[in-house]
């Protein structure tokens, strides 16, 4: 109980301190360009009143959901295959390692040329940003799998798809989920870049649009705050996956 209180009270205290120093710093600097916390809150209120806040959150979540889930559906099987079949690994891994470090921002021109400026282009960028971390972590999960599970399975005569379904996949799952959690952070991270394309909604768009709107840095920071908060919620949700019995063994005793 005490610990729970600690986990609620301490972040609140830190948050209050941060907000206060933010406020004081803005006041001391004498700048009226950078907004104070109250101005950001007012900006958020204004957005909420116009109904834009909900629209933008929904739009960003929509793009991240599709891009990210597509990345999971492609990345996990691909990673499992690469981790298991050496020829596939030899053939594809160099190219994955080449593509992986390319920032989604660099892909923006390609995305526009291929998909135009509808929702497809940002979805594609978010997909790109998340598919490589997911693939690589799934691949590593298979490669680092404890040999004893594999031997036990082979001993029971398992092979082919059955071996994959009943042993390799579940044995790799905890590490895959960790990879997915990291990738979701990345996917959410690139939402601003992805919405630089001429979509006209979303939290990333809010930031870019607010820059075009003259001195509306309160909205820029409001967009940043919302992205951060939703990122936190997403992380908490994914962490819940780690509590499932099928994977809990993979995270040590906590």
């Amino acid at each position: 109980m005490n610990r729970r209180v600690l986990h609620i009270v301490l972040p609140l205290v830190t948050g209050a301190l941060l907000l206060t120093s933010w406020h004081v710093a803005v006041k001391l600097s004498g700048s009226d360009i950078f907004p104070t916390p109250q101005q950001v809150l007012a900006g958020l209120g204004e957005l909420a009143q116009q109904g834009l806040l909900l629209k933008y959150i929904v739009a960003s979540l929509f793009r991240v959901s599709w891009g990210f889930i597509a990345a999971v559906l492609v990345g996990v099987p691909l990673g499992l295959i690469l981790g298991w079949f050496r020829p596939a690994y030899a053939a594809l891994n160099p190219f994955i390692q080449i593509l992986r470090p390319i920032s989604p921002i660099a892909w923006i021109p390609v995305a526009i040329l291929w998909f135009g400026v509808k929702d497809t282009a940002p979805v594609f960028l978010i997909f790109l940003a998340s598919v490589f971390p997911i693939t690589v972590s799934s691949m590593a999960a298979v490669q680092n799998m404890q040999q004893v599970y594999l031997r036990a399975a082979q001993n029971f005569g398992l092979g082919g798809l059955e071996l994959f379904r009943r042993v390799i996949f579940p044995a790799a799952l905890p590490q895959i989920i960790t990879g997915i959690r990291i990738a979701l952070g990345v996917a959410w991270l690139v939402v601003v870049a992805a919405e630089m394309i001429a979509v006209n909604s979303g939290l990333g768009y809010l930031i870019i649009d607010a820059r075009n709107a003259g001195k509306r840095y309160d909205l820029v920071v409001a967009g940043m705050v919302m992205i951060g908060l939703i990122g936190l919620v997403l992380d908490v949700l994914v962490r819940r996956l780690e509590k499932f019995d099928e994977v809990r063994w993979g995270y040590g005793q906590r």
Partner: protein
Amino acid sequence: MGNADMQNIITVRDCWMSFAGKEPGAEIHVLEQVNLDVVQGEFVCIVGPSGCGKSTLLNIIGGFLEETRGEIYVENAVVNGPDPGRIFVFQENGVFPWLTVEQNIGFGLLSRPETERAERVKHYIAMVGLNGFEKSYPRELSGGMRQRVEIARALAADARVLYMDEPFGALDFLTRLKMRSDLIRIWQAEKKTILFVTHDIEEAVQLADRVLVMTKRPATIQEEVKIDLPRPRDLDSSGYLAARDRIFEIMGMDAHGGGG
């Protein structure tokens, strides 16, 4: 023991095993000219110093490693990979942590009808004394209980032969004693053939019909000690102590380079 009327289950003839060394051409010889026989229903222990290659030998017999040279027959056939009728019990515990006790024990039975599977699982859970833990996950069990799950999984799958590679090595002393007597009880009830590797001489003497003593690397089977004592064994009996001391002696003599 009179072997003439008993069927040979495991036959190893002139088995050699070497691995490539770090430098090209250099080979590390692990096993040299190993011969052994195990008959149906027999409980045989292999003891030897740590790292002597006894585990390698068991892995060859189990089909997980391929010998460099020699002939290995198990159940009248050349070993060609692992076989569901001959289950390996691992020291590091091969119980699947993502499955419940029940699901683990039923792992080798998925091709069987639902009712038969449930019955067998229930039977073996009772046999290894895990009633009440059917729905538990391995992480919720103690090391000894996990090892019992693995044994039950092998038995439930109707394995005729069990290969056990220091299965109790990671357990504490009391649990180890308990597991030994449980294993003997189960073995007597099921009449499986067991080939059991350990570095613990006391363990070997408590369990086996016969103890095969291996030398240091490159290892071979140096001597065979028959333990013709009634079970449950009295650890203070003169027979037990004599057998134990005999093995100590063989392994100790090894240090002087002597041989039988």
